[in-house]
């Protein structure tokens, strides 16, 4: 147990690159191991690992464990758990960081169960203190902030996207190729097809700006005004529960307790009242701008900038205003 040192980041390949949250985790791991010691390792499972290895080195990985196999061409929970486990056995880290995405959660939970290790989820902070790792995570929609640690041995964690900085610190990492013998059960799930319906969509959980619409947009038709504002800002689109339940947009846009949790630099809420269950998914945003015609709307109680007015008129006007400013600069 005393041999365990350093941090292992489980890479999440995404659209041919490493997911931002992987790069953020590597950057944070660098900062922590500078004080606590131990190497920063990254494990990459992919059909062709080279570009991911290069990216891990660019952000300062000391070692990259590579599981290069056609079996890992597309995410499969059990295959990626086996790959991460092989790297954990090789690297003997004190802490394993996975991404706070559906893929990362599966890998973290699977590895923690196999290792019988402490599982820390949805980290928004990670510190090293006297050789121990102390994790911060918000519970109950950010209404309580908890500091936790694993009680012994290696800890496995998932990291919330967008909370740690990304910084390049180029290194020439040691690359270690791992031969993984996948368990018979791990190869049972077979990929039939990969379907991309929303090519180029900005990831809601990783976006630095989110523009979200609610009932105050008036109609499903008007929701495109939200999309247009998002487009001009390079932002992801979000939605309140009520309009998802109305069927204006698909549930994958929903922000809140029964939707996604986001922490962008900027969250623009258009015609959203800001009920508890919506606030739970977005109140850790750095800056919140709210547009709502009801001056009593709850969202004004926690928005940094509130505009009392009709979102149906203000949203397209804001799109136009930003477009104008962009073309002027």
């Amino acid at each position: 147990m005393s041999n365990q040192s350093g941090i292992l980041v489980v890479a999440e390949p995404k659209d041919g690159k490493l997911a931002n949250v992987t790069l953020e985790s590597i950057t944070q791991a660098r900062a922590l191991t500078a004080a606590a010691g131990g190497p920063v390792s990254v494990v990459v499972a992919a059909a062709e690992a080279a570009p991911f290895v290069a990216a891990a080195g660019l952000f300062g990985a000391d070692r990259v464990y590579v599981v290069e196999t056609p079996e890992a061409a597309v995410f499969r929970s059990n295959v990626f758990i086996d790959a991460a486990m092989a790297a954990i056995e090789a690297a003997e880290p004190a802490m394993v960081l996975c991404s706070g995405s559906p893929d990362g959660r599966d890998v973290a939970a699977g590895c923690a169960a196999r290792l019988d290790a402490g599982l820390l989820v949805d980290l928004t902070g990670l510190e090293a203190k006297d050789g121990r790792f102390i994790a911060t995570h918000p519970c109950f929609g950010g209404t309580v902030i908890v500091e936790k640690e694993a009680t012994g041995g290696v800890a496995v964690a998932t990291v919330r996207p967008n909370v740690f900085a990304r910084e390049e610190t180029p290194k020439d990492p040691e690359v270690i190729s791992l031969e993984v013998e996948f368990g018979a059960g791990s190869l049972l799930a077979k990929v039939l097809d990969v379907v991309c319906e929303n090519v180029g969509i900005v990831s809601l959980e990783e976006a630095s700006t989110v523009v979200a619409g609610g009932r105050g947009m008036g109609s499903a038709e008007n929701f495109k005004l939200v999309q247009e504002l998002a487009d001009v800002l390079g932002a992801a689109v979000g939605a309140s529960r009520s309009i998802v339940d109305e069927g204006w947009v698909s549930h994958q846009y929903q922000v809140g307790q029964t939707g996604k949790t986001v922490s962008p630099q900027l969250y623009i809420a258009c015609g959203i009242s800001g009920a508890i269950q919506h606030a739970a998914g977005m109140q850790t945003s750095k800056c919140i701008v709210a547009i709502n015609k009801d001056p009593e709307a709850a969202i004004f109680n926690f928005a940094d900038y509130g505009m009392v007015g009709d979102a149906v008129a203000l949203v397209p006007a804001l799109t136009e205003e930003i477009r104008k400013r962009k073309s002027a600069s």
Partner: protein
Amino acid sequence: MNIAVCVKQVIDTEAEKKLDPSSWRLDRNVNCILNPYDEYAVEEALRIKEAHGGQVVAVCMGPEKATDAVRKALAMGADTGVLVSDEALAGSDAQGTAYVLAEALKGLEWDLILFGVRSTDGETGCVPAAVAERLGIPLLSTLAKVEVEGSTLKVHRETEQGYVAYECPTPAVLSVIKGINEPRYPSMMGIMGAKKKPLEVKDAGALSLDKSRIGLDGAKTRVLSARIPEPRKAGVKVEDDGSGAQKIAEFLASEKLV
């Protein structure tokens, strides 16, 4: 196809959640409901049963009052229920919960295990994967579509860009997302009938649970501190006088956000 659907009782999503400062445990003395995501899992289990036959058992870990969550699943149409309830289980973390559910599931008959993608209070989304790992069967999570052909599953796993289609033999653990179906409301007949359906309550002894793995003491994580963050303060509030859009743009520019 026999199906076990794992359900949890959670605090109403509209209610404020509070922690007991002595134990850091969630104060559950408020209105509790069946975890909203689990309704989709129960509905999916019922649809598979209706198309292919078999039995649906609802499995839950929680305090005695979580019986209500199991009864809701029974009222929707599940055939039997199992509640694992024991004071010794209080304070279990995701790992402990997965251990208990896996042990309970070992004593039941199923070809398929369904979960909601996560609970709206614990929010870890980690229990399905940990249960699959403990049972040594494949995991398919975050599913937007499930089809059964004989003993083969064809599923769609949601991604940001669309979905990935997988095929997998049973047995397997699946977690389903909102939008996979429209959960039914229990009928009056269903609610009445649920009271007569078998609901077995098992304690730690009945499942021969290893005490070192359950409850607060068995947790593999320790809470060091918990605090209520400073509530976000209201910032500027401006009335739109026709120049609202320019004002917002100016604010964004001043904060270097555009």
